[in-house]
């Protein structure tokens, strides 16, 4: 007998806000979080813009000594987890923490620490490399530190599937609770890739927008003028909880997670399958897992990164899965405002689905002024839309051909299936 899994809390550290209120206000007002990169000197870079987290003070969330031992990606995750726990009204002392775990996604882990310590090695030799280099850098340490900071002793792992990492994390966390192996999971993603080496690598791939003179207009999914994604950072964490567990403690239930699908293009290291087959398969699998006909879906938060091929092929895949209904449902890409948080994107966009359901409000795709003829769905251009939503879906696709889709539904006490 499968358990039902509900979402009871969200925490955010993002380019559009470091608390839930600002995050939602900005996303539904069409405010971009993109600006010139301030973290390092961008001389010589083809892309000099990013969506940076602003005004983040680790000491607001983490003990000073502990914060020193964390790479930025871990600091974001611990901070967002603390906010999510608070948002869920969760008294950790009152739950069985052996049955509470953590699954976070991260595409690259502590690359800032890696770069700094590599410089130490080159400049001052092996004897000066920090003893906390390895534990700061390894990609699983955000999950590990969330477990340590909150004393959660259940399953604790990290998923790494590039830009699908946190969608896979949430899918795995959902399944663990659904199978009855945990009461509660902290899940989502975290990423801090705004470093000289990482940005240079993405620049060399020609993956990033070079609309440097118009940062707020640079991420323009589905628009004809799109020219690549805008790199971003942050962490969004959700509290997933077995329904009865949430009801028994009188928790707010924000939404229910009902389906998870995953697939692989098995095609190319970075380019998407030219027919969008992997993406379509992922969406179909998620709908089948939720026991839903495609016609039930009201809204898709698209992967929509603002790349030429990606947006076109996702559109093609949506049409393939939804047929006529593809014209009736709403699709939007909040990456138009947040930029692309890579391994943390799926967490952020799952939170968007939850908040869209809860507030009956769809955040827009901004900068959509001249639609690409090959991108011809209803992308909720430029202005948020007030409408009731029962079923939403979020897509995440990553280098390596990873595809993951989650189904988030309005919570109702009685469900048929």
């Amino acid at each position, binding site marked *: 007998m499968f358990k039902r899994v509900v979402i009871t809390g969200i925490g955010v550290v993002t380019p559009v806000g470091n608390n839930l209120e600002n995050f939602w206000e900005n996303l539904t007002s069409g405010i971009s979080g993109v600006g010139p990169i301030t973290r390092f000197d961008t001389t010589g870079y083809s892309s000099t813009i990013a969506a940076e987290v602003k005004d983040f003070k680790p000491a607001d969330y983490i*003990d*000073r*000594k*502990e914060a*020193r*031992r964390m790479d930025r990606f871990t600091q974001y995750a611990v901070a967002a987890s603390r906010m999510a726990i608070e948002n869920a009204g969760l008294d950790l002392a009152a739950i069985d923490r052996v049955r509470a775990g953590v699954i976070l996604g991260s595409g690259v882990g502590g690359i800032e620490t890696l770069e700094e310590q590599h410089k130490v090695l080159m400049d001052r030799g092996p*004897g*000066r490399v*920090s*003893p*906390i280099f390895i*534990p700061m850098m390894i990609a699983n340490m955000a999950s590990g530190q969330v477990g340590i900071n909150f004393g959660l002793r259940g399953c604790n792992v990290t998923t790494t599937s590039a830009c699908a990492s946190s969608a896979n994390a949430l899918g795995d966390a959902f399944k663990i609770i659904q199978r009855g192996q945990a009461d509660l999971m902290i899940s989502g993603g975290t990423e801090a890739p705004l470093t000289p080496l990482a940005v240079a690598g993405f620049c060399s791939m020609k993956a990033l927008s070079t609309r440097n003179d118009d940062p707020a207009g640079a991420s323009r999914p589905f628009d004809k003028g799109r020219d690549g994604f805008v790199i971003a950072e942050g962490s969004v964490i959700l509290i997933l909880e077995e329904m009865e567990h949430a009801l028994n403690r009188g928790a707010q239930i924000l939404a229910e997670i009902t389906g998870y699908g995953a697939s692989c293009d098995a095609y190319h290291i970075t380019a998407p399958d030219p027919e969008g087959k992997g993406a379509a398969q992922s969406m179909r699998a998620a709908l089948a897992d939720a026991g839903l006909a495609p016609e039930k879906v009201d809204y898709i938060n698209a992967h929509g990164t603002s790349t030429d091929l990606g947006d076109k092929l996702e559109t093609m895949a949506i049409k393939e899965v939804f047929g006529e209904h593809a014209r009736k449902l709403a699709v939007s890409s909040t990456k138009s405002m947040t930029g692309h948080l890579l391994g943390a994107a799926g967490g952020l966009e799952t939170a968007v689905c939850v908040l869209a359901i809860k507030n009956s409000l769809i955040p827009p795709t901004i900068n959509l002024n001249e639609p690409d003829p090959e991108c011809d769905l209803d992308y909720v251009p430029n202005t948020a839309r007030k409408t009731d939503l029962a079923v939403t879906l979020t897509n995440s696709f990553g280098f390596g051909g990873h595809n993951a889709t989650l189904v988030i539904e309005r919570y109702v006490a009685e469900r048929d299936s």
Partner: protein
Amino acid sequence: MADVFERVKDIIVEQLGVEPEDVKPEASFVDDLGADSLDIVELVMALEETFDLQIPDEDAEKIHKVGEAVQYVLDHQ
């Protein structure tokens, strides 16, 4: 002496996240200041950098208290 103590104290406060008034000569890094094995390695490295020293492992293993660290620096500078 006082100068070396102050500089050592600054390093300890920064790295261990402790209050300056707790950093006394008789304070043990592990028992009083909450250091773990990684902290000790980091502290020894910081002492080496700050005072331009080489501290061999066998010497580092004998440094347990703040005052011992200060004395080591004074003896080897």
